[in-house]
């Protein structure tokens, strides 16, 4: 029995927002190499996704009167505690679900179609 870990990747967004096709290809290749390294180390790759930049993020503060705001979650006293990957018909459907989530704050970030 082994443990499972979530890797949260942080980067300067401009490196992929402004990437040329060549730079993009290099980044994709780097991720492929990393996936292989995971397997080579005897670990299991349960999959990962690239997210759209924070400019596409929407944050929902839940509660009886939920508040929807433009932009990513700015960390204060809440900490990243879990995640769901949801497929639904558009942002409004996603926001309606986010309001129901058992969490104080939900940042809704579209996943990049690669």
């Amino acid at each position, binding site marked *: 029995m082994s443990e499972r870990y979530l890797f949260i990747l942080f980067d300067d967004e401009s490196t992929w927002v402004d990437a040329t096709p060549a730079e993009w290809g290099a980044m994709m290749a780097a991720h492929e190499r990393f996936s292989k390294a995971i397997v080579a180390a005897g670990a299991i790759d349960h999959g990962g996704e690239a997210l*759209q930049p924070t400019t596409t993020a*929407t944050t929902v503060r839940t509660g009886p009167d939920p508040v*929807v*705001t*433009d932009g990513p979650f700015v960390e204060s006293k809440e900490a990243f505690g879990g995640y769901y990957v949801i497929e639904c018909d*558009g942002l*409004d459907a*996603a926001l309606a679900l986010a309001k129901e989530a058992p969490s104080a704050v939900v940042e809704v970030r*579209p996943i990049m179609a690669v």
Partner: protein
Amino acid sequence: MTDVADVVADVVASLHRDHWGRVVAATVRTAGDLDTAQDCAQHAFERSLVAWQRDGVPESGVGWLVRTARNHALDLHRRAGSLRDRMPDLVQREESRNVDEAAAHWNDDLLRLVFTCCHPALAEQDRVLLTLRVVCGLPTPTAAGLLLLKPATAAARITRAKHKITAAGIRYAVPTADDLPARLDTVLEVVHLVATAAHERPRDPETDSLEESSRALATSLAEIFPDEPEVLGLLGLVLFTQARTEARRAADIVLLDGQDRGSWDVRLIAGGRAATARAVERAVARDGRAGRYALQATIAGVHAEAVSVETTDWPALLRLYDRLVEVWPTPVVRLNRAVAVSYVEGPGAALEALDAVAGAPSLREYAYLPAVRARLLADLGRTAEAAAAYQCAIAIAGDDAQRRYLKGQLEALGP
């Protein structure tokens, strides 16, 4: 010959002002995205100038523009070879719709566009920019000027917001019944913000187009939601406010003193009166409680009906402000209520009400606050304090006309 050109140019300008959003909205699905839809609408308006001089103005100008814009979108797709990739049934359905209908025929499309541009997942500033640029068809520099942004900054924000609409999956749709009331509030806020910000700008052609745009949008919304009290209330408020645009200058920084009421626009006042009466009627029929816009419109109406500041029904205004404070307790509303108190209960009681809100951070740069304070202090005979308050108002006044007016008041206090 020139006459025909002039007439056509006037017709096209008026269609552009009132119906640009409808033409863009009715073209979005065929075009595939907002940018292309805007380009196609632009193409249609340019074509109309030439075609209508030659062939005459068609019966339904909006229908002609929509058809031309959609055909241009189809041409663009054909040229790009992308028509087959698009859902053919969708394109067909749009094509077969009767394009000779009256402008109101495109209200559903317009509404989808408005709700998309005013989506709560977009920053408030971006909602305003998108609405002005995409729905109202104003040039980016005009939209930027309203928010005191550089045109390049505004253009970048518009691009970013459009990207978010696509990337985050904001659908081009009217919200569900559950979401509608809250989403409609967001739309009304955007229209109100444009109307208010335009009203506070100095008079110039750009201010005129901002006022015309907010008026056209408020009118369209009232046409689409003829029973929504707050939609009607916002229209009433916008019309009453714009009725005194010509008269409004530095004079009204302190109440409506010194305005030439003869120059108020009678036609807009009549429209404001009708919309406000219906807003109140609908609110009473629904739950008996008027919302912020219906109340603000009623307040604006009381001012508009008065012959002078002296003959204004201040006790009625104070009752209305008391109710407005209940549903919309902002510092500005409390400040305006204090002004009403001064006419009903005297300057002492008003000063007390004023000082209760004076510390609000949102009023720190608001010259109206020290200006009102100065007048109340002067009425109480506290001349030295009044002079100090006028100095303070002059220091933060927004423009030269305001400053001139305030300096005049300061000098009138005497040595």
